[in-house]
């Protein structure tokens, strides 16, 4: 009987300790969650209601200042601001530019990160280490500085054109084109992508590669069937982060891109400031947000796949 009582007490103590630690855990997680709700969640909700024509409350001041403000005509609001944006002749070009630049830059960034990561994983050595370190340099250069550096390098009166003109080569002016945005985006995105991809490739045990070699596989087959599939999660994560970052970028397209069509980040700023059309700018922001959410789904898929593979879920 005594032992039954002791067991019951122990169980009781265990339950108390578990509930205490879960309360403690909740209070530890509460401050950051509260911050996210207050500074991200609520502003998003307010912006969404504004884009749907809810112009009172927190949206009252901006509704008074802004032009072409649409007020709700149903209980759920109105899509008038959305119609404005889709009817605007600039928007399709901007959207296309944003998507093309995001896709192209992400593709090139991943290609370069994979190339460098694979070189380091397979060849190793000092050259690979130097290359990887050099590729991390942009991580420590502010985007505004690097954008300006790229501008002076590729501008009409920039270094490239000046240098090559000495040899009689008429190098095209790259600045103020979509290509310049791609160059700038790859430059700024590469360090993070390299960190992710390289760490993913480095974590693959040598034995898995050597077994493939032993089975008769050559370099490209090993890359295709062993290295990339095993590092797919960090590669996908690097890709999604890069794509989302580029899609919402502002500084690089502002410094290096053309005036029209331009990327949506710049256009949102123009609509908000220069054109004083805050409702339409928020609509554009929501369109970018929706596209980014689609990419985020790929990120979630990659994480779930990785968790399943490692047996965490």
């Amino acid at each position, binding site marked *: 009987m005594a032992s039954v009582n002791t067991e019951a007490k122990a169980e009781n103590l265990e339950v108390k300790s578990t509930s205490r630690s879960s309360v403690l855990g909740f209070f530890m997680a509460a401050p950051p969650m509260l911050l996210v709700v207050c500074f991200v969640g609520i502003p998003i909700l307010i912006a969404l209601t504004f884009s749907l024509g809810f112009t009172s409350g927190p949206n009252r001041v901006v509704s008074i200042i802004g032009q072409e403000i649409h007020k709700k005509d149903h209980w759920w609001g109105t899509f008038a601001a959305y119609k404005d944006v889709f009817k605007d002749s600039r928007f399709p070009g901007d959207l296309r530019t944003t998507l093309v630049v995001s896709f192209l830059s992400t593709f090139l960034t991943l290609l370069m990160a994979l190339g460098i990561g694979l070189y380091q994983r397979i060849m190793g050595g000092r050259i690979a280490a130097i290359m990887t370190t050099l590729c991390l340099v942009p991580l420590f250069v502010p985007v505004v500085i690097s954008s300006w550096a790229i501008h002076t390098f590729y501008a009409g009166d920039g270094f490239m054109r000046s240098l090559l003109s000495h040899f009689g080569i008429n190098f095209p002016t790259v600045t103020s084109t979509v290509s310049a945005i791609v160059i700038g985006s790859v430059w700024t995105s590469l360090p993070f992508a390299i960190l992710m991809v390289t760490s993913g490739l480095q974590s693959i*045990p040598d*034995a*898995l590669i050597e*077994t493939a*070699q*032993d*089975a*008769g596989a050559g370099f490209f087959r090993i890359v295709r069937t062993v290295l990339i599939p*095993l590092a797919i999660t960090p590669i996908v994560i690097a890709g999604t982060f890069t794509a989302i970052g580029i899609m919402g970028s502002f500084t690089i397209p502002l410094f290096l891109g053309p005036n029209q069509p331009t990327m949506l980040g710049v256009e949102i700023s123009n609509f908000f400031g220069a054109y004083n059309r805050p409702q339409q700018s928020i609509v554009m922001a929501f369109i970018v947000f929706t596209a980014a959410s689609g990419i985020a789904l790929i990120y979630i898929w990659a994480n779930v796949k990785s968790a399943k593979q*490692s047996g965490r879920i």
Partner: protein
Amino acid sequence: MSDQTQEEGLILNGLTKILGGRVIIDNLHLTVKKGEMVSLLGPSGCGKTTTLRMIAGFLIPDKGDIRLNGKDVTLLGPEKRPSAMVFQNYALWPHMSVFKNVAYPLKVRKLPKDEIERRVHEALGVVNLMHHKDSRPGQISGGEQQRVALARALVQEPDILLLDEPLSNLDAKLRVKVREDIRELQRRLGITTVIVTHDQDEALSISDRIAVMNAGKIEQFSTPQELYDRPETEYVANFIGSLNRVEGGYADGKVIPGDEIVGIRPEDVIYSATPTPGAFPATVSLVVPRGHFSEVYLKRDDVELRAFISVDVPRVGDTGFARVVKALVYKDGKLVRVA
């Protein structure tokens, strides 16, 4: 091609490997007959895995050559060699099913789909894992993973099978079972096999011959019985089995003053309560139970000896008689006589 080279499956001729400025393998010679199972046995760092990796083609020797079935394969990469290796941690690709893991080498060779299926089923049948063909490596036990790795090696029908400490990640009971499975398979298929291990029990129980390695050289290459009964060097005698090591000489069943090393296996020390020919009075100073036998320390006038006794185990303080059946006498590390 001579009959001799046909018979000799693998020949390592004067292999030398220097890594990081250190000589890891030093002029190593070894001949493995076709269908033979040979163990490379030695402590960590003795060069056994380096030797195996040179045989597999992952390392190119700095000197010497490797011949396999009469063909020089020294400079061939692993993908070109007719060998298959099973790694210490099995090295199964976690993103592929058991079937795909085993089928991989055949897909690389671009064999027809139906032949791949037939051979993979055959290989999985040999290791009794057909029921797991659709499982991922993470879903099966360590022993089963080991068998998948073995099936992946066997499906290639290699001229030589290389096993790098394949049992070291398994628990003791499973290790015994899997090593018996490996031996049975190797005998049935008649495949030339080189296994690297640091476990002498493992080497003694499954090998046709064992190469005991020390500091990049082979100390002795013999059958397990010969290695145990007649270790050619003091190092081998110490490494294989237990040994009473005494400095001195040996004559008439007694250890006498001298400049040799006398090695006496504990099982070669016979204890009796009554006097027998060649036995000398001994007192039991310590008894350590070891399960199915006891390790008994016997103090004689000339020497203290350990003996393994499984029946009528004496107690501490008992007096009786201890006789040495066989002694190995070494001078400068080399066996000079068996007394």
